[in-house]
């Protein structure tokens, strides 16, 4: 059904129909996947395996759409306009998710972080060790901006996944004797308390003068 078909040489009207149908099916799969990712997101604790598998599927669709050049051809008449709208709509879909979570999109994350994602798309079949990212030049000839929007959506999904399981939690493991967390301290924003481990939102630091400038307010995740 969604098999990557071998392209036939003959240029037929039928083939265009088939191609358009496949594109539509592919687009609907993409939409379904993005909705699932967003739902993953809204769940209290996302199932990481499921999220990763869906995200990989999304990347795969995106890669094929880029290769086929259907990225632009997909929408009728207004070349470039409609695809961007679709991508914008999926980005809004994802943005709404983290606004609910109270997260802010990392500024300038779009193309700056893109190579991390793309290195997996255009690199060789991924080796088992994810730490060794293969250097791959971001292909600027492609419809970079459109890809960038989708990329940003995926990046931000993973950022929020990351922030759901912040690395600060690992700092807790080193010291088993202390209380796991002091809820009151966190809620009242008492920075001085030793047991307050969670980085406080930067808004708490504003207007506090020099007293609380000692700690650098945590930036966006």
């Amino acid at each position, binding site marked *: 059904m969604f098999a990557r078909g071998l392209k036939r040489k003959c240029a037929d009207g039928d083939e265009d129909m088939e191609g358009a149908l496949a594109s539509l099916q592919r687009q609907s799969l993409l939409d379904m996947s993005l909705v699932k990712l967003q739902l993953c997101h809204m769940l209290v604790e996302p199932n990481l395996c499921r999220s990763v598998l869906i995200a990989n599927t999304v990347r795969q669709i995106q890669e094929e759409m880029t290769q086929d050049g259907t990225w632009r051809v997909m929408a009728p008449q207004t070349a470039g306009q409609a695809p961007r709208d679709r991508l914008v709509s999926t980005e809004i879909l994802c943005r709404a998710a983290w606004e609910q979570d109270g997260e802010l999109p990392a500024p300038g994350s779009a193309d700056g972080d893109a190579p991390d994602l793309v290195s997996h798309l255009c690199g060789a079949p991924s080796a088992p060790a994810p730490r060794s990212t293969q250097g791959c030049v971001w292909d600027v000839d492609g419809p970079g901006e459109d890809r960038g929007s989708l990329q940003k959506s995926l990046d931000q999904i993973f*950022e929020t996944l990351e922030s759901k399981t912040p690395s600060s939690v*690992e700092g807790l493991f080193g010291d088993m004797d202390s209380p796991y967390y002091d809820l009151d301290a966190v809620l009242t924003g008492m920075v001085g308390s030793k047991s307050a481990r969670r980085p406080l939102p930067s808004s708490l630091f504003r207007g506090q003068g020099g007293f609380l400038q000692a700690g650098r307010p945590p930036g966006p995740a």
Partner: protein
Amino acid sequence: MNYPDESTYGTKADIISTVEFNHTGELLATGDKGGRVVIFQREQESKNQVHRRGEYNVYSTFQSHEPEFDYLKSLEIEEKINKIRWLPQQNAAYFLLSTNDKTVKLWKVSERDKRPEGYNLKDEEGRLRDPATITTLRVPVLRPMDLMVEATPRRVFANAHTYHINSISVNSDYETYMSADDLRINLWNFEITNQSFNIVDIKPANMEELTEVITAAEFHPHHCNTFVYSSSKGTIRLCDMRASALCDRHTKFFEEPEDPSNRSFFSEIISSISDVKFSHSGRYIMTRDYLTVKVWDLNMENRPIETYQVHDYLRSKLCSLYENDCIFDKFECVWNGSDSVIMTGSYNNFFRMFDRNTKRDVTLEASRENSKPRAILKPRKVCVGGKRRKDEISVDSLDFSKKILHTAWHPSENIIAVAATNNLYIFQDKVN
């Protein structure tokens, strides 16, 4: 292979999430979504009732895990028992490990059939006696009482997993065990609860680069330095703990090359391994992905030696199964005691057995409607093509809400336990 007959046990309303025989097969433990563990014990065979060859009865029930709330992340930690693993028996008591998403617990299950009587300072009801009224001393004696089975938590191994624990495995040294979550594997000593060693870590420095997670892990049955773990990309890595402290570099890497003719957008998802099990001999590993069960020889990394189709008729339905999330179901697989037969579950309360020697396979159904107790199970068949025979069921009629994810096989006999949602079925081989 004889078809088994059936004794059925209905359990409580909660969905069974794990099933495991102990090393002798005398006990069978189940864990459920409500955090409870129920242990069944096999009856001693008696000369009077030859036809009741050791049925399983409830032996102990206890609440292993409770729901918790993580205030830091503002989310609830489910009490669902993901896995139970037994320790080999070393004295009169039984020990098992049970785990939910975050915490592993060691439980001791022991029997009490005597109680002390004749205390000096307390009367028979336990009330304190006035010391002034005590004029003689007596030695308390142990008197028989009704058998009581008690379960006590002996160790709690907490706060070591950021992600959800999917596997636990007891090492053959009986001193250590491992717990695996989506990105990390930790090694524990049974005696030490405030420390664990991280032996595998696949978390990327940048979470945006995450494309693969750990799905299952198991120790080698004989070599205490060797273990395997499977991934969501359909690969298995075998690691040797003697090589380095952090086993990020595998000793062996098992992966089957992709079949280009079957390629689709769902290829990766259906290749994700949901379970990995060493054979009892330690020579083979078996993996379960969405549509197949594969047997691998540890000495051959580039492809499995055997592949069995569990329900290939679902291959054309992958899009619908993706839509309703069934494609993410995690089926387990088990070996029989002699490693000659493998078993795994499917939908519609079907489960499948494959005989590795005769290459024959059978589909059976675990449901009360279709079998009476002591009746022989009838093989089932799914009709793929046009004409459906009388007893066959068509693919479109399959009930995808009735999935058999968890099964267990007695270590030495042909007795199997099959969990069908909230019911446990135990099937035994029919004698002669």
